[in-house]
């Protein structure tokens, strides 16, 4: 079974600071996803990464993928309060099975 680990599980950061969330997975996959979930809400797709070295950026968030290391990162630049949420990475395996990490709960403090 594919395992997906995220760290840190909890992250409290001040506005304006930078930080990185890490996602490690145990088996080769051709697709990696990042999602955002606000309390009581569903998952919102942020990024889809398909190939080694892929980098995608949207606003203050940037995601990258290293398939050889089985590692993806979500980098937050100059955090703002609106980014407070839980962030999940997910790995596609066996065609259409998606395995999610346990999530990183991010709190941005003014």
């Amino acid at each position, binding site marked *: 079974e594919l395992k*997906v680990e995220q760290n840190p599980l909890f992250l409290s950061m001040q506005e304006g600071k930078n930080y990185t969330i890490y996602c490690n997975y145990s088996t080769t996959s051709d*697709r990696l*996803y990042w*999602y955002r979930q606000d309390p009581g*809400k*569903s*998952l*919102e*797709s942020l990024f*889809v990464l398909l190939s080694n070295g892929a980098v995608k950026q949207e606003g203050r968030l940037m995601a990258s993928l290293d398939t050889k290391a089985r590692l993806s990162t979500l980098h937050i630049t100059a955090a703002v309060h609106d980014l407070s949420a839980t962030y*999940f990475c*997910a790995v*596609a395996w*066996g*065609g*259409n*099975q*998606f*395995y*999610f*990490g*346990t*999530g990183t709960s991010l709190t941005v403090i003014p």
Partner: protein
Amino acid sequence: GAGVSQSPRYKVAKRGQDVALRCDPISGHVSLFWYQQALGQGPEFLTYFQNEAQLDKSGLPSDRFFAERPEGSVSTLKIQRTQQEDSAVYLCASSLTGHAYEQYFGPGTRLTVT
């Protein structure tokens, strides 16, 4: 356009009751997924449909869980003889194609078994 919808949004069941959770995917989407999300955890895969065919049900935790999608659109997840450990948010997602490149999630149904 309309996204994935789920009903009910909240369900409280007494232990031993049967429940049925409904998912309306985005119109025309071929693939449909069910996930279980326990409090403080990531979603866990339950089952997957391509049109009306259930291609993977390996994530269903027991034979008390049953899912169907008889006409290839609306899907129902049924849980028989609910137990406390079934308490979770049940998420439905749909995808345009069979390859499920991108999934669109519904708001979820929060099931509480008392």
